[in-house]
């Protein structure tokens, strides 16, 4: 990638807006194409999955993450490095079970919904940010980790925060797990 020209602060914002606005146009288009919310959600997840499988390489190339030895470390990296890198926010992390396979990422501020006031009429089950769950799932799968990713709380549905639940499905096997180069 060529070296970026010197950017004024407002243009930096435009660049951030570009992704959010494009995403909004995509969701709007999918709502036109599909009548059922579940279909839109599924499609967003599928697209996110496709993006995640490629994004993980981009992420590993830009960051210098160490090899992880536990699910908690992985979740911390997702929250503190990946989210910060791509979306400019750092969600907080909670662990939801004693066996430390279920976690939540709590987003006080969700940049994806910056320009969205409320869900469109008749779209109450739309999971607007479902692309994110697909991205996380796809990225984890590329490093040989199977996980379920769902939105447990959604500000567009009246919750106070956005909460993404990540449940690792297989026991982390140290011998099998290798950081993808």
């Amino acid at each position, binding site marked *: *990638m060529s070296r970026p020209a010197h950017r004024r602060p407002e*243009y930096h*914002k435009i660049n951030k807006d570009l992704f959010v606005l494009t995403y909004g*146009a995509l969701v*709007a*288009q999918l709502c036109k194409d599909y009548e059922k919310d579940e279909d839109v959600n599924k499609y967003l997840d599928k697209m996110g999955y496709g993006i995640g499988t490629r994004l993980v390489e*981009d992420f590993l190339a830009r960051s210098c993450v160490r090899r992880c030895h536990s699910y908690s470390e992985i979740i911390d990296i997702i929250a503190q490095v990946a989210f910060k890198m*791509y979306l400019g926010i750092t969600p907080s992390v909670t662990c939801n079970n004693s066996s430390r396979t279920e976690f939540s990422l709590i987003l006080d501020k969700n940049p994806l919904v910056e320009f969205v006031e409320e869900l469109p009429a008749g779209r109450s089950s739309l999971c607007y940010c479902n692309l994110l769950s697909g991205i996380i799932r796809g990225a984890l799968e590329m490093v040989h980790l199977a996980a379920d990713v769902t939105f447990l709380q959604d500000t567009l549905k009246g919750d106070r925060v956005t909460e993404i639940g990540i449940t690792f499905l297989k026991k982390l096997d140290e011998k099998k797990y290798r950081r993808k180069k």
Partner: protein
Amino acid sequence: MADAALFEFLHTEMVAELWAHHSDPGPGGAAPASHLGPATFSLRRAAPPCIHCPGISDVPSLGLQHSGSSGHPKEIRASRLPSGHTISTCRHVDRHQGQKMSLSVLEGMGFRVGQALGERLPQETLAFREELDVLKFLCKDLWVAVFQKQMDSLRTNHQGTYVLQDNSFPLLIRMAAGLQYLEEAPKFLAFTCGLLRGALSTLGIKSLVTASVASLPTCKFQVVIQKT
């Protein structure tokens, strides 16, 4: 830059998925079809602009050439992509209707985003004295904001037609340089054509934006101002 990366990944996925979605006869994962023969893609569209590749009509006083595309048919053929290519989900169709819809869908999305971006520009940029200033602004400031680089050249016939050339367009840069993916290139330009048209619209200019590619990653955007 990381913040540009997300947009590029999303755009790539949109090109792959919207294309497949609007072209597939039905739901479900069909295996990619083999080469189905030429699918003529014609570009008759009344109001919104059309995207055609690779040749654009010569604007005489601009002295442009077809850049090696003479003899290349003005069609987009559905063809098999080599495996391992980043666009693994592209499907292969010979449905004329499906292809037409996909490019216009992408262009329409780009238009809405371009309009919204235009509204977010710093206020002082909105007071342009002439049309040429607006185009220069697109080539420099908008392009830098969106693609982290300036447009490489801007030419005009001073009669409302402008050709903007980018020698290493970021949305084409991940594909092999040269002619290998010439036929796929228009799909990657449709959104940006709409983006330009939308930004111009917010700046008070009605236009028709088309794109052409002679050899990746160089592409040209032709902006024709519509006089009302």
